[in-house]
């Protein structure tokens, strides 16, 4: 198969290009963090009970006195050996810290992505098949409101209604729940409802608009008219002929959003105290814990690059008109 071999070559070439771009990204990230003001041991300087020698000893111990290029080199060599660095603040491996936060992030952000897709596709398709109908206008209005309202606002409104007024849902997320069996799952679902809803509606709102316009583009094409004139039922035309084609760009968009699932949602995590990667990133930034910041941002960067590649490949696979060269 001619096409297949070409695409394999293409993938290999893309993978090779990834190496210098990731190196470039890491250099930029590392130098930005090195240039940024602030010192992880700044707090010690203003603490009268800690003598300056302790601070000096710590700086030496964590290699902060070395020149930047040397620190970068050490970091890179360690990374190639699978060592992501050591947190100044928590004094544990960065990889352990990230792994602790990863499951919650994947569950909460993943669930919200699924919710977003589950809402966006049917609503977007329905709205596009009946453009400018009442349903379309209502859907459009809600989509506008949805992505215009910031998550910190919708989050607080949900807390006020469901936690404080109705007292149905807890607003503090706890990763470690003492219950077992069904109660365990029920507690987890209960505390996830609000953060997942906030994030899911926010992302879903934007996606609805995208699906709608994509379906509208396709629905006017000649082949759809042909299908209809062949006597295929409207329902089948939409599901088999229109949606299949219209979703190609949507799939790419979703693939490109996947790295977000890893990096978390800083604001929403803060409001609901969800112990995800986003809250780890923000607290590490505030504490000037550069190895953790470097670890999280670099993993995000890698995922963006990889998912870009996956999106490219998916796109070509779904749409044979795209050629790999």
């Amino acid at each position, binding site marked *: 198969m001619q096409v297949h071999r070409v695409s394999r070559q293409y993938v290999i070439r893309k993978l090779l290009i990834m190496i210098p771009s990731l190196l470039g990204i890491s250099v930029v990230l590392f130098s930005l963090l090195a240039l940024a*003001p*602030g010192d992880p041991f*700044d*707090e*010690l*300087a*203003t*603490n*009268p*009970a*800690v*003598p*300056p*020698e*302790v601070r000096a*000893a*710590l700086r030496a*111990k964590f290699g902060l006195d070395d020149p930047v290029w040397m620190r970068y080199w050490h970091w890179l060599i360690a990374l190639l050996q699978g060592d992501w660095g*050591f*947190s100044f*603040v*928590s*004094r*544990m491996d960065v990889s352990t*810290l990230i792994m*602790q*936060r990863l499951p919650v992030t994947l569950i909460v952000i993943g669930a919200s992505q699924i919710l977003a897709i589950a809402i966006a596709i049917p609503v977007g398709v329905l709205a596009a098949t009946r453009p400018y109908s009442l349903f379309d206008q209502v859907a459009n209005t809600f989509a506008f409101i949805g992505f215009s309202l910031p998550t910190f606002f919708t989050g607080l409104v949900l*807390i006020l209604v469901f*936690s*404080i007024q109705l*007292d149905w849902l*807890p*607003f*503090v997320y*706890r*990763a*470690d729940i*003492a219950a077992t069996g069904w109660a365990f799952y029920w507690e987890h679902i209960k505390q996830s409802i609000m953060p997942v809803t906030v994030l899911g509606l926010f992302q879903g709102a934007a996606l609805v608009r995208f699906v709608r316009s994509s379906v509208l583009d396709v629905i006017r094409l000649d082949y759809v008219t042909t299908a209809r004139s062949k006597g295929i039922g409207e329902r089948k035309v939409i599901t088999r002929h229109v949606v299949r084609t219209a979703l190609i760009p949507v799939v790419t968009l979703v693939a490109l959003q996947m790295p977000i699932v890893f990096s978390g949602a800083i604001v929403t*995590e*803060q*409001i609901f*105290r969800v*112990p995800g990667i986003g*809250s*780890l990133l923000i*607290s590490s930034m505030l*504490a000037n814990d550069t190895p953790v910041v470097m670890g999280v941002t670099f993993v995000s960067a890698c995922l963006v690059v990889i998912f870009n590649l996956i999106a490219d490949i998916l796109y070509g696979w779904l749409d044979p008109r795209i050629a790999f060269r």
Partner: protein
Amino acid sequence: MKERELRGLIGKVKAGKLSRRGFVQAMMAVGIGAPAASQILLSSGVAMAQSPSTYKPTKRGGGGPLKLLWWQGPTLLNPHFAVGTKDQDGSRLFYEPLAAWDPDGNLKPKLAAEIPTKENGGLSADGLTVTWKLKQGVTWHDGKPFTADDVVFNWEYAKDPATAAYTIASYQDVMVEKVDPYTVTVKFKKPTPFWADAFVGTRGMLIPKHLFADYIGAKSRDAPTNLKPVGTGPYMFKDFKPGDLVTGVMNPNYHQANKPFFDTVEMKGGGDAVSAARAVLQTGEFDFAWNLQVEDEILQRLEKGGKGSVSITPGGNIEFLLMNTTDPWTEVDGERASLKTKHPTLSDPEVRKAVALLVDNKSIQDHIYGRTGPATRNFLYGPARFDSKNNPIEFNVDKANDILEKAGWKKGADGIRAKDGKKLKFVYQTSINQPRQKTQAIIKQAAQKAGIDIELKSVTASVFFSSDVANPDTYTKFYTDLEMYTTTMGQPDPGTHMLQFVSWEAATKDNKWQGRNITRWQSPEADKLYRETEVELDPVKRAASFIKMNDLAIQNQIVMGIVQRPTVSAKAAKLNCNISGWDNNTSDLSDWFKDA
């Protein structure tokens, strides 16, 4: 009451002619509170009656979970590396010191069998030695016995600069020796009036020798127990996710009978102070929330939920106003506000007096801080035994006008007073923080009425409180005429606190502005008083020196107290907990319980 009379009374108590209660009543009659009175007795060699325990449960456990909400979660659990209170509070679930500070600033034994006093031979007459008797039969969570070797080890561990322990200052200048398996002595190089530093309170938590012995010095960061504490405390370690969650379970072998009450404990981190208050006061999801820097108005509204109440614990932290003694607008030898200069207008004592009369502490308390900031003029106000009664709050614009008029500061066409071509125009800086900006406005308004023009300046907190030598806007540089912030007092002894008034601590270019004396006040009288407190072993005389030092600084208008900043926390309605402003929030966790 004269010192001699006081000593007479103390003598009577010692001889058994006067009861403790009689003594306390006599002291109350002359305006000395009960805690201060009992401290005077204690330090004079009369053993302190243990404050009656309010602990009611009659068996260990059965209390269900205890849920604590710290809006900044602990990030590490080795008490020797704990920087902020969050880490110390988290470590304190599992580790204990020999003794803790109670709310009145008195010692309460934890791993010590008793508090050392002169009477029980714990304190030597020359002030050079403290002998601690350890509680026997205490075990670490892994079952190994707790002995004097552990105590000595903690000293060796913390004093080694290679360990890089944050507690080093409490241990590096003392010698610790084991006398027998349950007795240790702490020896000082010179007579030390404040002996309760090593092994006490926030910096005194003890870690087990058998788990840390191999990780002393440079290897300290590799100890697995850094992340899995094994202590002697009321709860045993279960799980730790830095910044998010610490959990523990009841220690079935805890060394105090019938304690602890709760079966499990969890400390959740993250979020912000307002929603933390809400989770305790309004929804009741948590039992206790820490450090609520929230406007009192909001707290009062949340309290109406009825699920809990706000508890306010006095300590020594003070929001205060500083007046520069040096000239911040002239550069000498590459530094502004050099010790070689004098402030052009604030060097006139009459101007200082006038400015002091323009600070309306009462309004600041009533309209801004509420219960979270009681008004005071003193810089040193806690524990009660150090609180001076000589500095009443006086706010009087007319009197300020009068003083300035008499001193020759005449109003010009623009309404601003001037003398010899020098105008009364000040720049007043603080960090960006809403209550502080409101306070600035109140003072500016009053000053305007007295013909003083104040320009307000607010600096981002991360810059204002940084130690960045290159930045001109840090609080230690104090390159303005007036400034305001909160200074914290970590221990119930004012020794470190009062360093802010001694000449040799002036913050200058030479010490990279690390000196503690920010106003750069040079007063031989204050220096002399401080030197006295360093060697004075008699606590009554020593307290008198500190009070005099405070009065000197206030009455010369070097600084002025604005409001006290007590610890504010929220607790569930049924929770009984004793919070001390002189120790960690969780220092008395073993005694917390819930009413049925």
